[in-house]
Structure formats: structure tokens, C-alpha cells
């Protein structure tokens, strides 16, 4: 009997070893010292974000360019606006893993559609910066702000606003999350990005969003953008509508 149990245990151990051997594949080029890859939902598809494993790989094409005319392609400051946090790749991985997965966060590709169509960071939605620069009642802007957790307010009385402004000054009851038109109390954490340090599209989106009253502490700026994403050989998704599927060769 004891022998049988020992054999069963041995088989179970071997099976477990085989399972872990096939399911946990070690990578040579990890994301960070504690993370090999991260999975993120992109339009209903689970996409694994990892780095190119070929260590001889180099950047070619448009994102290998060093120089573009400035203006308009000028180097952006590290801090785009007071209260807005600038983040790097490691923070993005954590954001994907926690905030996007839980539905509390959103990554916004603030570039114009022609850029977005060439490839985007997994988990991002494309809301061009021009949308945020629209008038407060523009349907496109309204749709964008609602998708970010903003609630439109109707017919807010002057008295209510006066009380709110008093509370806002004292930072009470979340009154500083409200404007005449919008209530951003339930607004999601958002990360804005565009083509990289030389790109002004996401800074413009952020500034316009702040002007609409979106709380600065809920906005993050990924300054590295597509430029750094590509330099690090990270996964990019190409939106549907173009060509064929990923090749395995």
C-alpha cells in the first residue's frame, strides 16, 4: 500500500513538473527584474506585453529618426502640468495589471487616427487630442468624458455651485471634482501618451482636459510614449481593418 502511494506521489510530482515546465516559459529579456510579461485586455482580446527576445534587434524605420522640425515636434518637459504625474514603463505595466484589469483605469492614445492605425500600446483606446479641445457640449467630447467616468450635470443651480465652491476651497466632499457641467467624482485614472518626448499631442490633450475640470491627480502622462515603447521592444497591437494576422515565422 505504501509503495502504491509513493508511486502515485511520484507520478503526481512528475506531472506537476511537466506542467510547470510547459506553462512557465523563462524569458531572456524580461520587462523588469520581477516581471517577465504582463497581460492586458485590448478590445476583448488578451494581449501579452513582453519584449522582443532577439538581443540583436535594432530599431529601424520612422521611430529611429533623431530629428524632426521643432516647432511643432519639440521636446516636452517632464512635468506637463501641476498635479499631473509623469510615469514610465514600469508604472505602465502595473497600471495595466491593476487599474485596467479592474476597470478603474484607462490608457488613452491621444494621437490622431493616422498615427494610431500604425500601431498602438495594448490596452489603449484612441481619443485624439483634438477631441479634448472641443467645446464643452460637443458630442464627441461628451462621449469621451463619459467613457472616462465623468457624469454630465444638468441645470445646476447657482446656489449649489456657490456652496460647492466654498467646499472646494476647503477640499471637502469632493466638491473640487465638480464643475458647472461635469461631476468627475467617479472619474477613472487615465494615462495619456503619444509618440514620445518629441510629441505634443498628449500634453495638449491633458491641458485641455484640465481646462474641462478633470482632476489633475487622476491624470498621468507617459512621456516616453511610442518612441520609448518601441526602443524597449515592447508589444504593439495594430488595430483591425488592416491586412492579415500575426505571423509566427
Amino acid at each position, binding site marked *: 500500500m505504501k509503495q502504491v502511494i509513493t508511486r502515485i506521489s511520484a507520478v503526481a510530482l512528475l506531472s506537476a513538473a511537466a506542467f510547470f515546465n510547459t506553462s512557465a516559459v523563462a524569458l531572456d529579456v524580461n520587462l523588469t527584474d520581477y516581471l517577465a510579461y504582463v497581460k492586458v485586455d485590448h478590445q476583448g482580446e*488578451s494581449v*501579452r506585453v513582453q519584449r522582443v527576445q532577439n538581443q540583436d534587434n535594432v530599431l529601424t524605420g520612422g521611430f*529611429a529618426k533623431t530629428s524632426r522640425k521643432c516647432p511643432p515636434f519639440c521636446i516636452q518637459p517632464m512635468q506637463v502640468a501641476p498635479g499631473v504625474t509623469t510615469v514610465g514603463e514600469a508604472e505602465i505595466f502595473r497600471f495595466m495589471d491593476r487599474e485596467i484589469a479592474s476597470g478603474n483605469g484607462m490608457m488613452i492614445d491621444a494621437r490622431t487616427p493616422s498615427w494610431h492605425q*500604425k500601431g498602438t500600446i495594448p490596452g489603449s483606446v484612441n481619443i485624439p487630442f483634438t477631441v479634448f479641445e472641443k467645446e464643452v457640449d460637443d458630442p464627441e467630447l461628451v462621449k469621451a468624458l463619459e467613457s472616462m467616468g465623468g457624469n454630465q450635470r444638468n441645470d445646476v443651480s447657482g446656489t449649489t455651485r456657490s456652496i460647492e465652491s466654498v467646499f472646494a476651497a476647503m477640499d471637502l466632499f469632493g466638491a473640487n471634482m465638480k464643475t458647472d457641467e461635469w461631476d468627475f467624482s467617479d472619474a477613472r485614472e487615465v494615462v495619456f501618451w503619444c509618440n514620445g518626448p518629441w510629441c505634443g499631442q498628449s500634453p495638449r490633450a491633458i491641458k485641455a482636459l484640465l481646462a474641462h475640470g478633470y482632476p489633475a491627480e487622476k491624470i498621468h502622462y507617459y512621456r516616453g510614449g511610442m518612441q520609448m515603447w518601441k526602443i524597449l*521592444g515592447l508589444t*504593439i497591437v495594430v488595430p483591425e481593418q488592416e491586412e492579415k*494576422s500575426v505571423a509566427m515565422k
Partner: protein
Amino acid sequence: MAGWSGWPQYRGLHMLAFSKHYLSAAGITLGFSLLLAPLAGVLAADDYLSVLEAEAADTGSTHSQTAASTTNNHKSVSGKAVRLQKIITPGLDFDQFEAELHSRYSGTHLLYMKLSAARRKAAWKHYQQDNALSAVRESIVSLMSSS
């Protein structure tokens, strides 16, 4: 700059007349400037967008460059970008391939189950060449119809 408001005081009547004329001309210019300012803003914005579009065209396709290519896969890294079309995870072994078909694409899996064991292997081999769902479906259908 300091003498601007004091001109008429020190320069006599003809200077006063001149300054009045000058001021009204300046006013007209300022008025025009104010009228044209929003238009200039629109033009500037349009310029920015057109430069952006030109640069986008010049930058070329991102996925022709160097992004890692992975979805739920266990191993593949091809140096190409993921395209958001229906694909079957690259790099699956035969059992994983069957399991994924079953869990994600039940319609295709139904057809697949009608194949003989040998033809299922052939479908899997075909998937290794092209993991697009459409390509896998086509191969299954052609395997079904082939005698």
C-alpha cells in the same frame, strides 16, 4: 515707451492731431487683429494637424519595425506586431491548439471535430504555418471536403 502717453503734452497741436490720427490707425489695426486672431488660431491648429499627418505618413508603418509579437502565447517572439484580428495563439502544441479552438472558437471546433485524427493533425500543422482563424477555418473546411 515712457513718453507714449505724454506725447501731445510736449509736442504742440499738430503733434496732437498726428497722434490722434496715429491712434485711430492703431485702433483700426488692433480691431482687425482682434477680428483675425481666432482665424489665425484656427489656421495654426490646422497647420499643426497637417504637419502631424505629413509626419505620420513619413514615419511609415509601426509594425514593420520592431515590436514583440505575443498574445496569449507561451513562446513566440517574431519581431512583428500583434494584429487585432482573430488569431489562434501562436506556438501551441496539438492539445493546446484543440483546447483553444474548443474554448474560443466553438463553431470552428465543431467542424474540426468532424475530422479524422490524422486530419486534425494536418489542421494543426497548417495552423503552425498560419495562425489566422480564417486560415485555420479554411484548412479545416478543405480537409473536410478532400477525399
